[in-house]
């Protein structure tokens, strides 16, 4: 059904120009000189007080990067990036120790307020000690690591996590404090030579989160990272490394926003997950980088490599993503199912509006016996956007009993957008069972008629159907994020489906 006039009007109103997080915080920052060279890499490494092996690792990645070319296979179109015209490191100027909320730099405080991070957590983030008796024991806790431009500004609940044995800290600190763990796992899932953007990240990554959950520990709270690009012309290159040791469990949330600018900004992150025997990692993302304005000007280039390695038997990695932001998204959170009986899951809602271009999906690589995977992808394209699902499911010769189920559905709103599905399904042994289904459609008129006949308005009926369309994925989000995700979807979508 083509969109009705009312819908069209509403789409206009809720268009990408309505981006809520487009403000800029004016705080002083410490930047590396513009451009990329071995000097830049050394500068970042020195800033972070890194050991020599880390600098060596970065330089090797940088030298390899020089020999690589940008990938062009994705269905995205953008002017060539001048990698010498970017700042590769930017950090807010160090602040004094504070004891009460009143003493925090009011600019940073305002930023958190606008981002919707509750004040109490802001107090935590900014290191304010809580007054005795103010603790609410019933409140569910989330530990937050906030990354502002290139550095992690604060991590909360460190002490409580330490009691459980969980290590949660900025990766720059982990390199200094837990070199044995970092050296063992960094680059073991996404090697430095993996792809153009991952290699660039390996050379210049400035911060990110590090999580280690020891054997048998169920992480007592959700862990969360908040990424914010604030500076002009900066690339953000964060690196996240999560290790779940035998029989452990961790749930990790990631959110991101950026100011509204006319230039495009580059975000090239790498996320590596390692799950040992019987361990489980749940990784959820609500990606809301600035998508550019309604003329397609500005916005973030989101070129991210995310990969999980189910290294142990019976391990499980689950990716859930709600993608509403970025001018361009190029992102394929993947699972390598190495251990026998391991399981990979991918749940995704990708919404594109305006001139956004999304090329996203997953890879499920079945190597172990009786490995299973499940892919649920919902793409919604509106405005003049292009929304592509690109996924690979492959079963190795020795992956007997491998099982995959894939469902990817697309919804188109308006006649100027495109929705595309590009799955690769490779079965290399007879006991692998793969099922794949994909549909692209409008909302059924029968369903709409049924709702309207029962007294709903056209818009309410559409809202109901769209909520049902993405329900499978929303259900996978942790409570804390589900609320935010639902709000985001209502901003990006409400009334825009017809």
């Amino acid at each position, binding site marked *: *059904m*083509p*969109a009705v006039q009312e819908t069209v009007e509403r789409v206009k109103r809720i268009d990408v120009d309505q981006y809520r997080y487009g403000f800029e915080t004016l705080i002083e920052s410490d930047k590396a000189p513009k451009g990329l060279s071995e000097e830049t890499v050394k500068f970042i490494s020195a800033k972070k007080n890194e050991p020599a092996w880390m600098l060596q690792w970065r330089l090797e990645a940088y030298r390899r990067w020089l020999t690589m*070319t940008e990938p062009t*296979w994705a269905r995205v179109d953008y002017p060539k990036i001048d990698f010498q015209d970017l700042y590769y490191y930017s950090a807010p100027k160090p602040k004094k120790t504070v004891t009460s909320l009143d003493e925090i730099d009011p600019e940073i405080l305002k930023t958190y307020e606008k981002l919707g991070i509750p004040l109490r957590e802001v107090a935590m983030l900014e290191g304010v000690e809580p007054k005795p008796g103010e603790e609410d024991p019933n409140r569910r806790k989330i530990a937050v690591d906030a990354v502002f431009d290139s550095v992690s500004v604060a991590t909360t609940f460190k002490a409580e996590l330490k009691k459980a044995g969980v290590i949660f800290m900025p990766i720059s600190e982990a390199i200094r404090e837990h070199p044995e763990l970092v050296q063992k796992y960094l680059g073991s899932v996404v090697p430095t030579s993996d792809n153009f953007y991952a290699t660039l990240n390996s050379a210049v990554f400035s911060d990110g989160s590090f999580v280690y959950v020891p054997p048998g520990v169920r992480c007592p709270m959700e862990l969360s990272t908040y990424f914010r690009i604030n500076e002009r012309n900066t690339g953000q290159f964060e690196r996240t490394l999560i290790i779940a040791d035998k029989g452990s469990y961790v749930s990790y949330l990631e959110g991101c926003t950026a100011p509204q600018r006319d230039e495009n900004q580059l975000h090239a992150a790498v996320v590596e997950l390692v799950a040992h025997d019987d361990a489980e990692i749940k990784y959820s993302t609500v990606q809301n980088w600035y998508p550019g304005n309604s003329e397609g000007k500005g916005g973030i280039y989101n070129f991210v490599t995310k990969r999980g390695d189910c290294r142990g038997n019976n391990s499980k990695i689950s990716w859930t993503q709600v993608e509403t932001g970025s001018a361009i998204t190029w992102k394929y959170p993947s699972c390598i199912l190495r251990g026998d009986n391991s399981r990979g899951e991918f749940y995704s809602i990708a919404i594109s509006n305006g001139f956004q271009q999304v090329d996203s999906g997953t890879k499920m690589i079945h190597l172990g016996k009786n490995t299973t995977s499940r892919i649920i992808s919902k793409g919604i394209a509106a405005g003049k956007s292009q929304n592509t699902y690109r996924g690979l499911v492959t079963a190795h*010769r020795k992956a*007997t009993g491998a099982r995959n189920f894939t469902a990817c559905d*697309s919804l*188109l*709103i*308006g*006649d*100027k*957008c*495109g*929705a*595309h*599905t*590009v*799955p*690769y*399904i*490779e*079965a*290399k*042994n*007879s*006991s*692998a*069972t*793969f*099922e*794949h*289904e*994909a*549909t*692209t*459609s*409008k909302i059924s008129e029968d369903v709409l008629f049924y709702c309207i006949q029962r007294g709903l308005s056209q818009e309410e009926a559409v809202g109901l159907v769209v909520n049902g369309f993405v329900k499978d994925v929303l259900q996978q989000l942790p409570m804390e994020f589900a609320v935010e995700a639902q709000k985001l979807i209502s901003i990006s979508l409400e009334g825009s489906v017809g």
Partner: protein
Amino acid sequence: MNVALAKTGSGRAVSDLFASAEGLLPGSPAIKAARRQAFETYERLGLPHRRIEEWKYTDLRALVGEVLPLAASPDAGALSKAADAVKAHAIAGARKLVLVDGVFAADLSDVKAIAAEASVKTLRETLEKDAGDILTTSSTDAVISLNAALATDGVVLEIADGAQLSAPIQIIHVATAASASAYSRSRVRIGKGARATFIESFVAAGAKAYQVNDAVIVEIGDNADVAHIRLMDDAPDAVNITSQFVTVGADTKLNFFNMTTGGAVSRLQGFIKLAGEGSELSINGVNLLKKTEHGDLTLVVDHAVPNCTSREIFRAVIDDRAHSVFQGRIIVRPDAQKTDGKMMTRALLLSDEAEADNKPELEIFADDVSCGHGATAGALDDTLLFYLRARGLPEKDAQALLIQAFVGEAIEQIADDDLREHVVGMAERWLERRS
């Protein structure tokens, strides 16, 4: 990524091949220039390899390696061998047009009977008389360019507006020359309101290790009703690469079926464009592969106008170390509203070393459409096998029965009873050879 094109031994050989063949190939000066240009394109690109997205699963550089020299024109011995093969593979009731090693064989063909209802010429005549655009195609890649450069002969069929063919036309490609290659190009034009059935068969007459590069251009007018069947049963060590370009008018029905039962390396790439509203397309295929055979079916269905329907059903049965590839793309252009496109591909793996690669793609630019695809891969259902075994059927027979049912879903789409029976017979013989 660009792969440096150092000229290998085979690269030089193919340059020499073109240089020596150029003078002998039919065509006016304009055609000769077009051939030269097409060959330069081929030389620039070289054989397709896995870094080229469309050829990701069929890496001709690895699978084929070199292009063989052109087959010589068939002599009397070759023609008599071919006559036997034609007899064995002719479909009862159909009128034959025979190409031997890529050269039209008038004596083996039913030219007179066909000429009563349609116009039939050879590619050779057509190229020599008028320049035409027969060497130009809507889509091009290295193998299509190579075909344009070296196409020796083929059939040019014109079925007039309103003509109702009283019998199917069968184009039989016979290979008699070993270790040589044949380049053929044919065009079939079907007028408004016409009804026609044509069949293409690829067979070997004792030849081994040969290469076929065929191109077929099919142009169908409005209100037509066309059945097109292609049966590829080349020698087990042969290479067959066929490119098909189909344009469909308005309110037309096209029913296409392909079966691959032979060839060490084969690929059928079809580019089908729905250019008129209200047409219905049914495209179906079966790959029956064994040993180390590699069979690829690549289809691009382009919905360029509104209100068309397309249905694709593909079944692959893969034994031993064989490799089946299905790449299907449905494109819905910005104005092609009310498009209804469905595609279903299923692979049955009979051995642990068999491989099935499926890439069903949707590329959609219109909002009021209903498109979908499904893909599955797996082994025979143990419970079904057990049921049949419990009723006393030997293992192989039980398997054969289930496989027949599996491929039957695609074969059933052939409307003509006799043709369908013929194809079922081919599938049965394949299964018998297996057990």
